[in-house]
């Protein structure tokens, strides 16, 4: 029985018990208490641009549909479950529809979830009244809200409003969107990369801001890139591929100076003034378009904002500097699907999209060189933690050096501060009476 006390014993100040990664009961409790209460990223406005456009995804274990109402144009997030026998209604990853019809007994619904028709209804006591019965509708997810086109939903009736939940991570979403001279971004393609990882969802969430791993886990890719650049001769200019990969074999000092910032509710970001992307040159026509749209000062603020990665705990990672997001979809205690979505900055030259695509292919895709090395490390951690001869996973790096700055804490780039912060939030969500 996982009492609050038992759960509290799993999270020490600088370490966590291995069970948080591999105990199926803890996974189920996480789905209820973290993924069942927090604001979970569902999709971006541009994924459902027209009336009746929908995508299907999950909030924790629960299947949902994000759909644009054919009548009002409003975006709904609905339980992907028929009001009759519970059959999943929408099966494809995306599409356009006038409504949803259950494939089993033919109950049909409007895009707002309202029951529209039941075949051969005379067997029911009051067929007309069924249309008003809450139990026969597709359920709307209790809370749905968006911030600058990013739709989140919460399975809990109560909790902080979305903007309060997002806190300082809003600035990253702002920056991603404001990097368009028109202040608008659009997702590229209806189908995203979905990378299946044979490991717990928290492995991925930790890895996003793990500055101690690139030089080791991605050392080979860094060295392979350097070896290739050597073959080009001294006078040759570096190809953009080498420019993107090279920091992944970067030095400890390089990552230290980036800095880590821990925020309430387990959120965090890496970088700020300086990040892995800060050296990328920007094309002149883009800078001109940005200056025209925003003026010199504001343009400078937008383009010098450089958070390498921002985590909206537990479901979303935003890389504003390369216009991509990664979305965490837990499947089981040892299986997670990571979606990678890339964005086009509306009104920006094609060169910006080229860089976004290059980054995703090199770092995130199932066929990339960097992604499989991360995945293999998660896999090994998942397997290694089956050993019960040492129960603890260590997060003690820079344990006494956190800088308090109001509602946030900061540390050097290789500090374990952000992991400790994630587990404090984790414990808050997991223990019923605590405030996350």
């Amino acid at each position, binding site marked *: 029985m996982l009492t609050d006390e038992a759960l509290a014993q799993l999270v020490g100040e600088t370490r966590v018990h291995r069970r948080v990664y591999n105990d199926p009961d803890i996974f189920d409790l996480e789905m209820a208490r973290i993924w069942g209460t927090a604001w979970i990223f569902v999709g971006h406005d541009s994924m459902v641009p027209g009336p009746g456009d929908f995508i299907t995804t999950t909030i924790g274990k629960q299947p949902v549909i994000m759909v644009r109402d054919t009548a009002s144009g409003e975006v709904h997030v609905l339980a992907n479950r028929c009001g009759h026998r519970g059959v999943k209604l929408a099966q494809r990853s995306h599409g356009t529809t006038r409504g949803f019809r259950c494939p089993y007994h033919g109950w049909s619904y409007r895009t707002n979830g309202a029951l529209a028709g039941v075949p051969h209804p005379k067997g029911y006591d009051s067929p007309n009244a069924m249309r008003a019965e809450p139990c026969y509708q597709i359920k709307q997810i209790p809370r749905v809200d968006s911030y600058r086109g990013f739709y989140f939903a919460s399975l809990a009736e109560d909790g902080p409003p979305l903007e309060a939940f997002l806190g300082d991570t809003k600035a990253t979403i702002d920056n991603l969107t404001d990097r368009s001279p028109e202040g608008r971004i659009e997702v590229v393609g209806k189908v995203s990369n979905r990378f299946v990882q044979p490991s717990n969802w928290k492995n991925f969430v930790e890895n996003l801001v793990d500055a101690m791993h690139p030089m080791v886990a991605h050392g080979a890719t860094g060295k392979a890139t350097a070896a290739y650049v050597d073959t080009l001769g001294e006078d040759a200019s570096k190809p953009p591929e080498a420019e993107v990969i090279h920091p992944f074999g970067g030095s400890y000092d390089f990552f230290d100076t980036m800095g880590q910032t821990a925020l309430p509710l387990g959120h965090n970001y890496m970088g700020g003034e300086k990040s892995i992307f800060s050296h990328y040159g920007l094309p002149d026509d883009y800078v001109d378009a940005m200056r025209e749209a925003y003026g010199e000062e504001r343009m400078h603020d937008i383009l010098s904002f450089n958070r390498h990665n921002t985590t909206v705990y537990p479901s979303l990672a935003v890389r504003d500097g390369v216009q991509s997001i990664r979305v965490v979809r837990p499947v089981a205690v040892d299986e997670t699907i990571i979606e990678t979505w890339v964005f086009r900055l509306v009104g920006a030259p094609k060169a910006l999209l080229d860089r976004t695509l290059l980054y995703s*292919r090199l770092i995130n895709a199932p066929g990339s060189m960097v992604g499989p090395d991360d995945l*293999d490390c998660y896999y090994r951690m998942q397997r290694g933690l089956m050993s019960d001869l040492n129960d603890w996973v260590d997060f003690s790096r820079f344990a006494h050096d956190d800088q308090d700055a109001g509602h946030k804490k900061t540390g050097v780039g290789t500090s374990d501060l952000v992991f400790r912060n994630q587990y404090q939030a984790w414990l808050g969500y997991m223990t019923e009476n605590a405030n996350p």
Partner: protein
Amino acid sequence: MSWDQGVLEAFIRAELRLLNAHDFAPWIELFTDDGVYFMPLDEAQADPELYDMIMYDNKPLMRIRLENFGHPDSPSMEYPIRSLRMISDCQIVEDTGAGCITETPFMASIFYQSLHWYAGTYRHSFVREGDAIKIKSKQVNLLNMGAPMGAIMTYL
């Protein structure tokens, strides 16, 4: 000058022999300098200039990957990779004289920790450089494009 199906099918078989043998240096040389290898996520997202890909290498990336294969510092490369590709029924679907496109059904098995099966269609775009035939692009359309998938550890 139009293209000969038999010559191109023999070319593809020779290309696959190099991949089966993990002999990547001469395989890379089969491509033009601006040649690309890519694996789309969807039929409607097949243009690598416009869309993200499951896998994408231009020639600089092929050369980096060549150095990365089997690298002792790479965790994912610690496991042996063995692979086998089979094709049937190569067809010319476009012949402009200067260039030519073939479509070839394939099946590939990759042993990487366990046996993985892939199937789909190769879409090769060929050009001539002097007397030599070169690959301008090799597009790999997987049957399961767009589905969630694990790491793809080598070229198919």
